């Protein structure tokens, strides 16, 4: 286990210690103990990046876990994973610092919080650094779990529980789908290693399970990254404390789906299905998210839908960029590389501006006690630092120069315009949709950024709306968002800092083999592209967005604006409750509580199954050989017996029934005599006598027999079932007997006949079998009798009167 292996496990180890820090050192906010770890890990990963991955190198190591099932704890640190690792640890450190000031150390159960947070951090690192699909799955589910635990952190609230359940159901469902996809891949390639699967990509593509595997893996990605229609869990996840929202639900966990898509691009991409599904879902999510964000009144709600939308943006770029695996050579190719490049760049940018915005909103929430835009306003002068942070963050998100968001937005437009030019996959007809949807969505994006910013900070300040005395946040809370915002500016002015250190190595991981022989992708990002179509698109966005904002009063009375909740939510809630009600109905229909019904099901099933088998394969036969003859008196006996039996159901007097059934038993004993079984006859006489005595003893306590009060329809069904059972028993019996006579398999009892006297010193063969050859059966039957006897004693003597209804 190398240092890298331990690095991933270290958060879990620290998590074990946290409760002790919380319990025994309450003076210091537990967060400080936590803070050291992500900071240290960030340093470690920075070092790895500068030394190895930015040069195109890779760190790889493997440790066995379950070798017999091909599950190895393999770590693989390349350009793509280092990018995520830096995000996870860097933003993690900032979030922990922020949380120290956000969560009051006296009021909150800090130990739980940091344990879950550390669990998440370790799990997330595990997801992005694992090369083994099963280990990735392990960590993937751990992120779902820890996320659900963090969402329900304030578990007394119903909404928190609801949000946690929703996120768990949706993401774990996606996890199962992903597991299915991995299992399919394994069945094709024989390995769980991602790198080896990439190497065998041709094998995968040729298999007829290719599409199912692809769809299943994509399901995992889409659920985790809140793509339409699985996005509904993210807004409800905003119940979590804001540091959690900033960390998981904007910068890291939701990006795991993007990671999955990126990582598996070399395996699945290059086919039209991948292109259309990934870009299509991404674009639609982009549009849907931005439209929904406009409708939100809760600041965190705006940010939630905004995240959904931005994730869709990155997803669509990954989709478009996959075209470069299709067009392997040529000039066209370079254009699609750019799409991948933009995706990565925007991933980083989004983390910076969204993280800062979430923190800023958290500050506002913390200081004013509300997130409702209708109550907020005029905070510009009271919270100047927060104002500046939000200004920069929102401007970047809206795509205003000179921030990093502007650059990536421009590149995004470029990518969509280029997509139009793809000469395959029906793009000639539908290609125009790409830039159009992108443009419309950007208008809405711009709009909600304006709403977010202006509604909070401009306008009149109404102190009566707030419960607290409103003032600027303490410096400790401001440091983290300030750092992020500084990055927004820096990446905007000097984007090429990232070019060959982070972006290019990541591109190599996503598009391996495209650049041959150590060549590198050409990455050059700059602010001013000239008066291209993209610039005009941006100007259009700004113009229309501003217009919409100015006339906001006009359309804010529209019904569609008033409602906040996503249209799909009722669908989710409805289907869930329909599922439960439907289940109840089905269960009640078949679990009637009546023994008769259960026995009927069983009998019908047996009769039908056996009849079908026997008839279908013509297995009935009648024995003709070796049948013993029927002496006259046997006819009489049998007739008497059958008559006695058939009479029983019709008798309504219990005494009579007992006598008749007893008589039946004695007749059986006579049969035993007739069939040369003296021991059996003796036993039967004895036992039948005891049984009759038992019944008579209990006679006093037994109820009066009434005539059957069941409906005639049921009685007829019962009769039919009974006849069926009787007939089947007879027929199969006959066939079985016939079979052996025809095939002449010698029974093992010949051994008993031969050896009873010589080896076992007994002349009564049956007794010898009972006592010697098959003695175990006899001991056990005695045990059965003993248990029955004890049971009877217990039933009669032990009559507890406990809590009857529980």
């Amino acid at each position, binding site marked *: 286990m190398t240092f890298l292996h331990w690095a991933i496990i270290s958060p879990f180890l620290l998590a074990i210690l946290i409760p002790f820090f919380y319990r025994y050192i309450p003076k210091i906010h537990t967060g400080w103990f936590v803070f050291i770890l992500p900071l240290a890990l960030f340093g470690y990963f920075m070092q790895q990046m500068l030394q190895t991955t930015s040069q195109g190198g890779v760190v790889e190591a493997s440790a066995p876990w*379950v070798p017999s099932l091909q599950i190895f704890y393999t770590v693989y640190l390349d350009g793509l994973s280092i990018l995520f690792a830096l995000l996870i640890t860097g933003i993690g450190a900032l979030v922990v610092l922020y949380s120290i000031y956000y969560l009051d150390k006296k009021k909150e159960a800090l130990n739980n919080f940091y344990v879950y947070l550390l669990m998440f951090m370790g799990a997330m690192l595990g997801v992005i650094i694992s090369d083994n699909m099963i280990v990735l799955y392990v960590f993937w*589910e751990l992120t779902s779990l820890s996320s659900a635990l963090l969402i329900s952190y304030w578990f007394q609230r119903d909404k928190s529980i609801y949000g946690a359940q929703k996120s768990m159901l949706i993401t774990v469902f996606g996890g199962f789908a992903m597991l299915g996809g991995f299992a399919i891949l394994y069945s094709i390639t024989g390995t769980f290693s991602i790198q080896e699967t990439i190497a065998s990509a041709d094998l995968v593509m040729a298999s007829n399970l290719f599409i199912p595997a692809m769809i299943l893996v994509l399901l995992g990605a889409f659920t985790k990254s809140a793509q339409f229609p699985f996005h509904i869990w993210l807004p409800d996840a905003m119940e979590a404390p804001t540091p959690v929202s900033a960390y998981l639900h904007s910068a890291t966990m939701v990006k795991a789906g993007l990671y999955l898509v990126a990582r598996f691009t070399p395996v699945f991409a290059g086919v039209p299905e991948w292109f259309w599904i990934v870009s299509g879902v991404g674009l639609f999510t982009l549009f849907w998210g931005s439209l929904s964000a406009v409708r939100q009144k809760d600041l965190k709600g705006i940010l939630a839908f905004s995240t959904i939308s931005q994730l869709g943006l990155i997803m669509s770029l990954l989709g478009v960029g996959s075209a470069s695996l299709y067009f392997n050579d040529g000039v066209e190719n370079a254009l699609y590389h750019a799409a991948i490049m933009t995706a990565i760049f925007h991933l980083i940018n989004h983390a910076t501006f969204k993280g800062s915005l979430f923190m800023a909103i958290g500050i506002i929430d913390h200081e004013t006690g509300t997130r409702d835009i209708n109550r907020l306003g005029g905070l510009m002068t009271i919270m100047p630092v927060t104002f500046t942070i939000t200004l920069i963050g929102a401007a970047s998100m809206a795509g205003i120069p000179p921030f990093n968001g502007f650059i990536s937005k421009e590149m995004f437009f470029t990518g969509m315009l280029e997509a139009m030019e793809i000469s395959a996959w029906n793009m000639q007809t539908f290609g125009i949709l790409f830039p159009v949807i992108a443009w419309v969505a950007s208008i809405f994006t711009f709009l909600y950024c304006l709403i977010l910013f202006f509604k909070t900070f401009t306008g009149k300040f109404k102190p009566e709306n707030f419960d607290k005395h409103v003032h600027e946040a303490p410096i400790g809370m401001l440091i983290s968002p300030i750092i992020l915002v500084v990055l927004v500016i820096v990446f905007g002015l000097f984007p090429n800092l990232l070019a060959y250190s982070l972006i290019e190595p990541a591109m190599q991981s996503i598009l391996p083999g495209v650049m041959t022989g150590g060549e590198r992708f050409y990455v050059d990002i700059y602010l001013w592209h000239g008066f291209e179509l993209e610039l005009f698109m941006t100007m259009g966005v700004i113009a229309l967005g501003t217009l919409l904002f100015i006339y906001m009063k006009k359309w804010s009375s529209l019904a569609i604006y008033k409602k906040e909740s996503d249209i799909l939510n009722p669908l989710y809630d409805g289907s869930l409750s329909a599922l439960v009600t439907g289940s109840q109905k089905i269960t009640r229909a078949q679990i009637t509580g009546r*023994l008769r*019904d259960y*026995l009927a099901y069983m009998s019908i099933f047996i009769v039908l199954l056996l009849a079908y088998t026997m008839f279908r394969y013509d297995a009935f036969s009648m024995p003709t050989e070796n049948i013993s003859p029927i002496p006259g008196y046997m006819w009489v006996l049998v007739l008497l017996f059958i008559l006695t039996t058939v009479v029983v159901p019709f008798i309504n007097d219990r005494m009579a029934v007992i006598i008749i059934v007893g008589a039946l038993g004695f007749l059986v004993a006579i049969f035993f005599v007739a069939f040369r079984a003296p021991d059996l006859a003796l036993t039967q006489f004895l036992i039948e006598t005891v049984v009759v005595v038992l019944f008579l003893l209990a006679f006093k306590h037994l109820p009066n027999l009434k005539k059957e009060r069941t409906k005639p329809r049921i009685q007829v069904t019962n009769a039919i079932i009974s006849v069926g059972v009787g007939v089947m028993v007879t027929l199969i019996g006959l066939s079985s007997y016939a079979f052996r006579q025809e095939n002449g*398999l010698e029974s093992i009892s010949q051994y008993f006949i031969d050896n009873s006297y010589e080896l076992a010193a007994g002349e009564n063969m049956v007794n010898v079998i009972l006592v*010697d050859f098959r003695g175990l059966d006899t001991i056990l039957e005695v045990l*059965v009798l003993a248990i029955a006897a004890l049971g009877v004693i217990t039933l009669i003597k*032990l009559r507890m009167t406990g809590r009857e209804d529980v």
Partner: protein
Amino acid sequence: MNNIVILPIVIPFLTGALLVLFPKYVMIQRLLSVLSFLAVMGTAVHLLQQVGGEGIQILNLGGWEAPFGIVLVADTFSLLLVITSCIVALGCLIYSFQSIEWERERFYYYAFIQFLITGVNGSFLTGDIFNLFVFFEVMLLASYVLLSLGGLKKQLRAGIMYVLINIVSSMLFIVAVAYLYAVTGTLNMAHLSVRVAEAGQPDLLTAIALLFLVIFAVKSALLFFYWLPESYSAPPTAISALFAGLLTKVGVYAIFRMFTLIFYHEPGITHSVIAWMAGLTMILGSIGAVAYGNIQKVLAYNIVIAIGFIVIGIAVFQEAALTGAIYYLIHDMVVKTLLFLLGGAMVGLVGTYQLKEMSGMIRNHPYLGWMFFIASFALVGVPPLSGFFGKLLVLQGTLETQFYVLGVIGLLSSLAVLYSTMKIFMNGFWGENQLSKEDEKTSTHGLLLPCTLLICVSLFLGIGVEWVNPYVAAAASDLMNPAVYIEAVLGPA
């Protein structure tokens, strides 16, 4: 010939008999019970090592060679099950010390448990089909008594139904054995395998095989599970947990044994029927688990789902799936028992079975809550907990044999398990705490220890999978190769 093979049967038998003699001395009863199970576990582990080194261990009772006498056969599969049963029984036993009322304890409670285990172990170890019937009856009768021990109204009511359904299937067992004897002339399982193979399993034998299938299906709650939710909610927690972990699994063992050793010649028919039953069971079980708001019913339906899933292994009749099924079987025995014990503790505290009336228990009982949480996720099959590897292997098996539908149903049923167990957890432990310490009906004192033991076993099965793998893989491969069994029992061909 190895005399140790009979110990897992004889030890509990004798202990039980001994315990009957002085039922009022509870402390000695408890001590002897625990010692008995520990001894059985010890012998089973020893046997397991012997099997690993020397092959399947057999014991010809009375010295009469197979197929004329009764033979006890200890192969890896049986031994793994014997060991797991002991672990489960120990857990329930220790739990009973605290939870079973003294009246029951003094009425031969511990003796009946010993007899139950006698029947269970015997069923696992016997190599003769009529003997299997007798051991089943021992087990079942002990369970009848335990179910109704105490004579509470609901116990009697549930008892009647449980007993009657099982007696019917037991009678059918006799019928099926009669047919089988008529056709083949022998009762020894290995010998049956040889003779059925010689006859080529014609369709008459297939019909008889299906009859056996239905009989064991009723006993193991495969498709015919109606009796289970109602019966398992009647007795005290320790007993229902014991049933949940053990009884149905013996039926599953019988199905596995029958359809790998004897009736494996027409998988197109027999194993397809099993596949249908497995799929339907999982679906109906999931529906049941989702429907109820009563903690015992939810857990009972989870048993049904698990049975359906385990049986997939035999339905697709392939080694990877079979390995996964055995893993899952062992894991399910431990975790199901654990969940029942924990659920029972919850009910004991709150005094109600209805989830709607519980809330916020995690405030005062964090340990109980987190154990339930972990156990639930082990059941769902989230790695690195114990259910995952079984699930993965079964899934792989369905892929390789192209039973895709079964694989999908299996995954979807895991979602149902997740939903239903989370329902219990969220309702019971999260939310506002409505129950103050004074209102609690009983305490959890002494109940958490056995739960901890079981959870450690589950964690070991998950994280330490590599340790367990050689045994499980060996068990599966032996099942797929009846010749190994036959040779051990009847001697080389």
